[in-house]
């Protein structure tokens, strides 16, 4: 039976109601007492051999006979009208096949705009023209031969300048746009009655994703059927984007992403490069590859918005009574913005809260979701401010948080949390780092001039997953299985956990499960973002495997002439009163029979809010003479429901901590204001962490299944570990030095300036 229901869905801080189609019965939840032999145990990645042998083919590695290469000419001005494009010289270069630009390209809608080549270039890096040629080298050379006549217009690139009324308006409605607001209680009254108030301003930089595989796609047409291979977190999203751009039926578009080299949020939908590849491929009748280089990646493939945030906290008799949080984010030309005030609304039990979030336009590359967009920025400000308040109140900052961490209901919706173990995270983390040894004002370091300190910060994020998500499980005549679902493995280990879930339900080995993902020809699954994946796709795969198992047992009952109720699956065999018959043996009797199980993800419970919680603790040593911060240890504790694969879960937390370490200490997009050019387009100048920067990282999980969330009891983990790290480090530095740095990255310059100002 199939029916349609409405369900609450939270994606990256935004709650919406969506329709979901459900079929069949759900699997009973695995509760804390469920005896699981595979789920919850460490498993190596099932695609490991391909990745360590270099056999794995990423989008970058695909080559097809006759394939051409496209390169993109990008604006060198932050704002300019394109008056004329002369491509004649480029077209006469041997090996060049075609040039597209705003005067000859077919209309192709892209994110609400009518064309991929704007008449007014809006940032340095905006697409002006594209060349298809026999080699990338020829295409690159041809770009230099295209003459563009620009009318240069006034621009603004800096967030705080863009806010200023005197700056050029990028939009007729101005540069500052309302994005989000929340009001509860009476903050004015609460602040009037507060005995302690702090009011501070925090700044965070633009962070660049720098996925090692740059954005790119290969497009090929077979008659009217388009196949696009794209490095993406959402094959179905790319398909939809291609449909909007090319105006062809969805049924004529297939999108494939078997493996991808990192996305971190930036690969959420179709890119202009994919549309360019598809247009050229259609015009020229051969496959076309369009892949960005590192420098393009860092100007035109998205970023985490820089923010300016003001926070006021009021307390009365030791309790926080009011929070006011105003935030401005540099969206570039983005039509949305991540919300840094998200954590402020829900993390702590505070009665009076007022938040305002603004989207600010500037002539820079637009934002793209970046691993916990908004929450990383907002948590730095909020959790720094909480520590500043604790210091003013002369109380332990962890104790102050504990006092406000107990709410069992979500403070925005008023609905109960399905599970909340934030206080457990505090207990585990405090014990692990030795919080009781933390002294106000820090302690002496390992050498003269060095100071040591400890700090911590909390995180809350969604991660409850969403329908729709569907899967099939085929059981082959030899007893092996194939899971098919249109999700993606963006490096998080999705393939492996799906094999675990299927193997657990079917009673077969993980090695006997193949997982086919990343293809729009498979059943639908949502975007691999927003920490949605585990909680969205594992329940569907579990139901599909259960369906396959039941069918298999029915078949076995007939073949073995034993009532189904007496049969169970175990160790790759059908077992009945001690007698074992392998699945292969059962199916042998029925030549080439394939069992096909199918499963759908159930809606989320209507009356519950599904969240993840966590806390990070950092220990640092700071050199007051040089301003150098050495992060020695990070303890990361998370409450994400059941941990399906402890091996890959730990890796994901370590990775989140390390990416956050870059955000905290070294990563910053620098833009030259007069020219609008990004100066940090390469990995020489944009400093992502190296192995040498990595502290000791201790990863712990509360690991209690959230049985009300879904049948697996698991929630998402992709984003939680990047959220609280920067704040924990900033708080540790403040503890060590007595100096508060309110601007990230926490560089030597910022720290020494703060020391000098003290």
């Amino acid at each position, binding site marked *: 039976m199939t029916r349609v229901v409405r369900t609450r869905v939270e994606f990256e801080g935004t709650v919406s109601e969506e329709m979901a189609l459900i079929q069949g019965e759900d699997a009973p939840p695995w509760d804390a007492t469920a005896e699981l032999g595979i789920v919850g145990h460490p498993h190596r990645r099932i695609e490991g051999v391909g990745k360590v042998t270099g056999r794995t083919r990423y989008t970058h590695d695909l080559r097809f006979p006759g394939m051409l290469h496209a390169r993109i000419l990008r604006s060198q001005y932050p704002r300019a009208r394109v008056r004329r494009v002369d491509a004649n010289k480029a077209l006469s270069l041997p090996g060049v096949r075609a040039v597209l630009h705003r005067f000859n390209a077919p209309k192709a809608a892209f994110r609400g705009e009518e064309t991929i080549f704007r008449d007014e270039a809006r940032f340095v890096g905006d697409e002006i023209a594209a060349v298809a040629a026999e080699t990338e080298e020829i295409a690159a050379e041809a770009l230099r031969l295209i003459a563009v006549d620009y009318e240069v217009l006034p621009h603004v690139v800096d967030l705080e300048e863009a806010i200023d009324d005197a700056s050029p308006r990028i939009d007729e409605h101005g540069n500052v746009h309302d994005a989000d607001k929340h009001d509860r209680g009476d903050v004015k009254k609460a602040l009037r009655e507060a005995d302690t108030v702090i009011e501070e301003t925090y700044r965070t930089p633009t962070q660049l*994703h720098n996925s090692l595989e740059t954005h790119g796609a290969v497009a090929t047409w077979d008659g009217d059927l388009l196949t696009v291979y794209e490095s993406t977190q959402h094959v179905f999203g790319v398909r939809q984007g291609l449909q909007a751009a090319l105006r062809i039926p969805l049924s004529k578009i297939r999108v494939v992403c078997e493996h991808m080299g990192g996305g971190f949020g930036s690969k959420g939908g179709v890119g202009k490069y994919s549309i360019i590849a598809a247009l050229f491929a259609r015009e020229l009748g051969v496959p076309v590859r369009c892949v960005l280089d590192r420098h393009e990646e860092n100007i035109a493939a998205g970023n985490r918005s820089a923010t300016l945030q003001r926070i006021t906290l009021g307390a009365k008799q030791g309790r926080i009574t009011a929070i006011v949080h105003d935030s401005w984010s540099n969206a570039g030309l983005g039509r949305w913005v991540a919300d840094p005030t998200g954590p402020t609304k829900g993390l702590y039990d505070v009665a009076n809260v007022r938040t305002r979030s603004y989207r600010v336009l500037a002539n820079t590359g637009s934002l793209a979701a970046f691993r916990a967009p908004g929450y990383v920025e907002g948590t730095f400000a909020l959790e720094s401010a909480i520590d500043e308040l604790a210091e003013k109140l002369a109380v332990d900052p962890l104790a102050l948080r504990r006092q406000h961490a107990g709410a069992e209901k979500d403070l925005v919706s008023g609905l109960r949390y399905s599970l909340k173990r934030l206080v457990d995270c505090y207990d585990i983390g405090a014990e692990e780092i030795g919080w009781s040894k933390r002294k106000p004002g820090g302690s002496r370091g390992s050498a003269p001039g060095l100071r040591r300190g400890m700090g911590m910060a909390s995180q809350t994020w969604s991660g409850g997953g969403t329908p729709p998500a569907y899967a099939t499980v085929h059981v082959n005549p030899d007893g092996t299985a194939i899971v098919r679902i249109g999700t993606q493995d963006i490096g998080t280990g999705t393939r492996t956990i799906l094999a675990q879930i299927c193997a657990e339900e079917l009673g077969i080995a993980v090695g006997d499960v193949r997982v086919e993902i990343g293809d729009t020809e498979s059943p639908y699954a949502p975007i691999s973002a927003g920490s949605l994946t585990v909680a969205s796709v594992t329940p569907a795969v579990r139901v599909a495997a259960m369906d396959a198992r039941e069918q298999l047992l029915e078949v076995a009952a007939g073949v073995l002439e034993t009532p189904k109720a007496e049969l169970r699956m175990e160790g790759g065999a059908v077992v009945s009163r001690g007698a074992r018959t392998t699945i292969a043996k059962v199916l042998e009797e029925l030549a080439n029979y394939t069992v096909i199980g199918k499963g759908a993800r159930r809606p989320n419970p209507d009356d519950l809010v599904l969240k993840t919680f966590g806390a990070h603790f950092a220990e640092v040593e700071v050199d007051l003479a040089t301003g150098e911060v050495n992060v020695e240890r990070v303890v990361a504790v998370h409450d994400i429901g059941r941990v399906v694969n402890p091996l890959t879960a730990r890796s994901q937390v370590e990775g*989140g901590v390390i990416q956050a370490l870059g955000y905290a200490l070294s990563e910053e997009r620098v833009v030259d204001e007069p020219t609008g050019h990004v100066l940090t387009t390469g990995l020489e100048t944009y400093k992502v962490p190296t192995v040498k920067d990595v502290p000791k990282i201790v990863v712990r999980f509360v690991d209690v299944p959230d049985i009300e969330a879904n049948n697996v009891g698991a929630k998402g983990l992709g984003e939680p570990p990047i959220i609280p790290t920067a704040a924990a480090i900033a708080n540790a530095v403040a503890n060590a030095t007595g100096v508060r740095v309110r601007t990230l990255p926490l560089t030597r310059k910022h720290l020494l300036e703060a020391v000098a100002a003290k």
Partner: protein
Amino acid sequence: VPPKASVIGPGAADVAFEVNGRPAHVHVPPHRTLLDALREDLGLMGAKKVCDEGTCGACTVILDGRPAYSCMTLAVACQGRSVETVEGLARDGQLHPVQEAFIAEDAFQCGFCTPGQIMSVVALLRANSAPTHDDVTRAVAGNLCRCGAYPNIVAAALSAARKKARA
């Protein structure tokens, strides 16, 4: 032995070298990098093009026994030399111990930097069979990993070295 400098180019030149123990020949312009020769001329896609300017290590190969950024090495400079890529490590269907250790220690997430990391570690272990933690981090300091698999990469290198010592 590399040939004594004679004039090569401006047109394409023949280059004969050894790749993974077998002879290889390419006909390439003098400015073609070893990375492009491996990927575009020889179809070896293991080494990755991430920055193409010597800042990330994803293209690391072993050139005459030493790790090298193939994006910073000209193909014509490889005449007569020996190149090893990640594709050449497994023998007779058996993974190299470093490859085994990368899987066991979960030393990769997206896997894009992995071929380069592995080649840096393999080169280290050949030169130093009992590396310290510091030796390992120095050996892979030029290999960026954006997923942050670093702790497990170090663990994999040390575990492969220990296994090798026991064998």
